[in-house]
C-alpha cells in the first residue's frame, strides 16, 4: 500500500478478555475478576450516557437502577424516538424454544461466520451467551412479543441462519424493545436517578489527565453550548450510515459524537464495513430524502426474482413462471431467499447491472408473495406483515397484495465504529462505546436481528459490569467548566459554529450531503475497487474544501437552528467518508459487507485474504491533515475453523 494515505503504528491487543480460560467461561471469569463498587459509593459516581437507543437507553436505566448518578443526552425530543424504534424484523436469542438444534454455540458460530470471520471470538460468544437473558428481561418489562395460541413465544427464521431463533413483535420489534428500555429509563428519571438532557447534541469529548471526563454539548433549543462532567462517558450514539445521504437511518442519525471522540484520540475501527440491506423500497426521484427498509423477515415468505429476459417491461403478473429467474434460489439452494444480506444485495445489484432490473429506472427486483398467499391465505400474510405492506402501499402507491413488491438494496447498518476492548472501553480510559457506535461484535457483516441483540446485551448486561470495574478507581478529581481542557473544547466548538455561520456561500448543506452520498454510493458502495476508491479520495478533499468555503448555513447560533445542526453533521460525514475510503482501499480483500472488485472467487463471491487481513483495522486520527495511523489488532480463531463462507 502506498504510504501517503496512512502510516502504520503499533499493533494493539484486546487484553481484557480472559484468554487463559476456555471461551464459554470467559465472560463469567471477566465478571468475577472485575472489581465492584459498593452500593453506598455508587451515589458518588456519575456517568454521562450519550444516546437513548437500545444501547444507551438500557444502559442508562440499568446504571440508574444500580445507583449511579446518570446524565442522559439525546438529540430528539423524547428518548423513545431513538432510531432503534425503527427496527422491524426481530431479535435473535439462543433459547432453542423450537428444539431445532439451536444453542449458544450455534448462535456464536453463525455470528462469526455471518461476520465473515472478522469479529472477535470472545465478544461474539458473550453476545450469544447473554442473548437469552435479553428476552427474559424484555418479557418482564411487558414487551408484547408475538405469541402462539398456547401462550408461549413465537419465533421466526432470519437471513444467515437455518434455525428459528428470532423473536419478534409483528414488524415493530425495535419499537417494542425500545419502549421497554425507555420505560425503564423513564422510571429512573421519575425516581430522580437519571438527569435528562433532551434535544442536546454532544459536540466534543473532554479529556482530563488522560481520562474521558465530560462532553461539550449544544442545547438545540436555546443554542447554548456548555460542558458536562462525570466520572465516565458512555457513547451510544448509533451508526453512521447517513454518510451515504440516502440510507435507512433516521434523518438525524449522525457520526458527530463518535467522530469528534475520534478526533480526540479514540481509534475508529473498520470504518469501511457498511451493510447494504437487500430489501428496501427503490429510489423514486431526486427529492428523495431517505430510503425505507422492508423488513428482512419478508424474505421468509417472499420470493425474489427478475425476468429472465433483459428489458422485459411486462406487468409482473403477466410474466409466466418459466420466464422468471428466482436467482437466489437458483444460486443458493440451501439458503435460498434467506442468504445473508451482503450476498442477497450483491446478487440483486448484479441482475440489475445485467439489465434485468425492474421498475421505472431498472433498479429493482421483485419480492413476490403469490405463493405464500396461496399457501397461507391472505389473512395469515396480513397478520405477519400487514404493517409492512401498508407502509409499502403508502410510499409507492401500489398494492403489494396484488402485485408483490419492488425492492432494491440500500445502506442500512455500519459494522465499523469506535474501537473498544472486551470491556467495551475505547482506548481513551473512561470512555465506553456501546451499540452500533462501537465496532465490536458483528465482524464484516451483521446477521439480521443481531443489532438489537447487541445493543441490549451491551446496555443491560455487559457495560454495567465492566463500567463498575473502571469506576472502582473513582470518584476522580472534581472537574468543572473552568478546567483548561473544558475551556479549550468549548471554545473550539464555539469557533466552529461561528465559522459555519459566517461562510454564507451559495450552496445549501443538503446539497453537499447529497453530493457526498452519491459519491460514496457510487465509489465506496456495494462494490469498491482501487480505481473507484482513489477517485473518491481525490474528490472528497475537494468537497471538503468547497464545503468550508461555500456552504450557506442560515440563522443564528443562539436559537433553535436545524440547518446549523445539519451543517455540523455533514462536516463530520465528509471527514469520516475519507477515512472510510482509506480503510476500504487498504483492505485489499473482500469480506462481508466490504466487497473489493479485485478480490472475488470465480463465481463472484467475496474472497477473503486471511493471511494478510485477519485483523481489525483501528485508525488513529492525526491532526493537521496528516495521514491517519493504522493500528492492527490481530484476530485469532481458536474455536472456529476459518473457512470460505458458503451458503450454497
Amino acid at each position, binding site marked *: 500500500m502506498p504510504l501517503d494515505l496512512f502510516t502504520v503504528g503499533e499493533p494493539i491487543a484486546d487484553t481484557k478478555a480472559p484468554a487463559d480460560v476456555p471461551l464459554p467461561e470467559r465472560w463469567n471469569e471477566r465478571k468475577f475478576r472485575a472489581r465492584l463498587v459498593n452500593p453506598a459509593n455508587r451515589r458518588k459516581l456519575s456517568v454521562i450516557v450519550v444516546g437513548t437507543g437500545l444501547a444507551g437507553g438500557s444502559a442508562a436505566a440499568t446504571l440508574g437502577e444500580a445507583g449511579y448518578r446518570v446524565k442522559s443526552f439525546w438529540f430528539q425530543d423524547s428518548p423513545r424516538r431513538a432510531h432503534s424504534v425503527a427496527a422491524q424484523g426481530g431479535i435473535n436469542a439462543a433459547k432453542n424454544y423450537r428444539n431445532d438444534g439451536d444453542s449458544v454455540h450455534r448462535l456464536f458460530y453463525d455470528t462469526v461466520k455471518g461476520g465473515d470471520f472478522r469479529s472477535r471470538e470472545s465478544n461474539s460468544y458473550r453476545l450469544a451467551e447473554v442473548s437469552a437473558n435479553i428476552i427474559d428481561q424484555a418479557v418482564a418489562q411487558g414487551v408484547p412479543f408475538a405469541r402462539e395460541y398456547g401462550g408461549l413465544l413465537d419465533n421466526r427464521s432470519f437471513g444467515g441462519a437455518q434455525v428459528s431463533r428470532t423473536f419478534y413483535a409483528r414488524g415493530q420489534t425495535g419499537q417494542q424493545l425500545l419502549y421497554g428500555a425507555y420505560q425503564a429509563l423513564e422510571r429512573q428519571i421519575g425516581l430522580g436517578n437519571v*438527569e435528562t438532557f433532551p434535544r442536546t447534541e454532544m459536540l466534543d469529548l473532554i479529556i482530563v489527565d488522560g481520562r474521558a471526563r465530560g462532553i461539550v454539548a449544544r442545547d438545540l433549543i436555546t443554542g447554548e453550548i456548555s460542558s458536562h462532567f462525570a466520572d465516565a462517558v458512555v457513547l451510544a450514539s448509533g451508526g453512521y450510515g447517513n454518510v451515504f445521504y440516502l440510507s435507512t437511518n433516521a434523518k438525524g442519525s449522525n457520526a458527530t459524537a463518535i467522530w469528534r471522540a475520534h478526533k480526540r484520540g479514540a481509534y475508529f475501527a473498520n470504518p469501511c464495513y457498511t451493510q447494504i440491506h437487500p430489501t428496501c423500497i427503490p429510489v423514486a426521484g431526486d427529492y428523495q430524502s431517505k430510503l425505507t427498509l422492508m423488513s428482512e423477515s419478508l424474505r421468509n415468505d417472499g420470493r425474489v426474482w427478475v425476468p429472465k429476459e433483459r428489458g422485459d417491461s411486462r406487468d409482473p403478473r403477466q410474466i409466466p413462471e418459466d420466464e422468471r429467474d428466482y436467482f437466489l434460489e437458483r444460486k443458493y439452494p440451501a439458503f435460498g431467499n434467506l442468504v445473508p444480506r451482503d450476498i442477497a444485495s450483491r446478487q440483486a445489484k448484479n441482475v440489475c447491472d445485467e439489465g434485468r432490473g425492474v421498475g421505472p429506472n431498472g433498479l429493482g427486483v421483485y419480492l413476490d408473495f403469490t405463493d405464500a398467499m396461496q399457501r397461507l391465505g391472505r389473512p395469515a400474510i396480513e397478520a405477519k406483515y400487514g404493517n409492512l405492506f401498508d407502509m409499502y402501499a403508502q410510499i409507492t402507491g401500489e398494492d403489494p397484495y396484488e402485485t408483490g413488491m419492488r425492492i432494491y438494496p440500500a445502506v442500512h447498518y455500519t459494522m465499523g465504529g469506535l474501537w473498544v476492548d472486551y470491556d467495551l472501553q475505547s482506548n481513551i480510559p473512561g470512555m465506553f462505546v456501546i451499540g452500533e457506535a462501537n465496532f465490536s461484535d458483528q465482524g464484516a457483516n451483521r446477521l439480521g436481528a443481531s443489532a438489537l441483540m447487541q445493543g441490549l446485551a451491551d446496555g443491560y448486561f455487559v457495560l454495567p459490569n465492566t463500567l463498575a470495574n473502571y469506576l472502582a478507581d473513582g470518584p476522580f478529581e472534581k472537574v468543572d467548566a473552568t478546567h483548561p481542557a473544558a475551556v479549550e473544547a468549548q471554545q473550539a466548538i464555539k469557533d466552529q459554529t461561528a465559522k459555519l455561520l459566517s461562510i454564507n456561500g451559495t450552496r445549501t448543506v443538503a446539497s453537499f450531503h447529497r453530493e457526498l452520498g452519491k459519491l460514496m454510493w457510487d465509489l465506496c458502495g456495494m462494490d469498491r475497487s482501487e480505481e473507484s476508491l482513489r477517485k473518491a479520495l481525490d474528490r472528497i478533499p475537494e468537497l471538503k474544501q468547497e464545503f468550508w468555503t461555500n456552504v450557506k448555513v442560515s440563522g443564528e447560533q443562539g436559537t433553535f437552528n436545524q440547518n446549523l445542526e445539519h451543517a455540523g453533521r455533514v462536516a463530520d460525514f465528509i471527514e469520516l467518508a475519507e477515512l472510510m475510503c482509506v480503510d476500504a482501499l487498504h483492505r485489499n480483500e473482500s469480506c462481508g459487507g466490504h466487497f473489493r472488485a479485485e478480490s472475488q472467487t470465480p463465481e463472484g463471491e467475496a474472497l477473503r485474504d486471511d493471511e494478510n487481513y485477519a485483523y481489525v483495522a483501528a485508525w488513529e486520527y492525526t491532526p493537521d491533515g496528516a495521514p491517519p495511523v493504522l493500528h492492527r489488532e490481530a484476530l485469532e480463531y481458536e474455536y472456529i475453523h476459518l473457512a470460505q463462507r458458503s451458503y450454497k
Partner: protein
Amino acid sequence: MSRVTSRSSVCHVGRGRTFAAVATVTQQPAQRGAPNTGRFSSSVVKKAVMAVSGIIMILYLIAHMIGNLKAFSGAESFNEYSGWIRTIGEPAVPTQTVLWIIRLVLLASVVAHFWAAYSLWAQARRARPVAYVTKKRVQQSFASRTLRWGGTIILLFIIWHILDLTVGAVNPAGGDTTPYERLIASFSNIPITLFYVVSMLLLGLHLRHGIWSAMQSLGQTNRRRERSVNALAYVVATVLTAGFLLVPLSIAFGLID
C-alpha cells in the same frame, strides 16, 4: 440545559437534579402544576360523576315520562297521579317525604352533573390556549358537539320548567291551579311549546351521545358491546324524546284539552 425547573425538587416527577457545574436556567417551564391528589380532582372521576348523575336523571325521566302520559287519560287521572307522588309511603312517612327524597337526589344529581361539566369545560379551555386557524372535524358527531351548549339550555329549561309546572310562578294560568290546568295553559301557548320542543330535541341529542358516553366513562364499553350500547343509546334517547313531546304537541294541536 436540562429542562429542569425549580419545581422539580418538590415534585417526584421532576427530571432529576441539576448539578451545580452545569445548571443553567431554562427557557420553558417543564411542568405546570404538580399533580393534584384529591380523588375528585381527577378528570376521569369527574366524568364518572357525570355519568352516574346522568343515569340517575335518566331513570327519573323515564318515570316522569310515563307519568306525563297520564295526561291522555284526562284531568282527573293526571291530577290523581300528581297527588299520588306526594302521598307515596303514607302513612308510614309524612306527606311528600318520598317526593322530597326524589327532589333532593335530583338536585344533587343536577348540581354534581353541572359541576363536573363545568370543571371539565374549564380544563379543556386551559388545554388549548391558542386556537387553530383551521380545524376540521373528522368523525365527531353533532350530538357530541352540542353536549355543552345543549346541557346549558337543558339547565335553563329545568329552571323554567319547575317555575312553570311545579310552582306555577311563570305559568299563564298562575300558581293556584291544578297541575293539569297548568299543563294545558302552558302548551296552549305557542312560544312556550316551541321552547319545550327545542329543549326536548336537545335533550334527545344529549342523551343519544350521553348514554354511550356514560358507558364509556364507566369503562363498560368495548368492541363487542359497541353495537348494543349504541343501539341502547338510540332507543332510550328516541323513546324519551318522543314520549315527552307527545303531551305538549297533543295539547298544542288540541288533541287534549
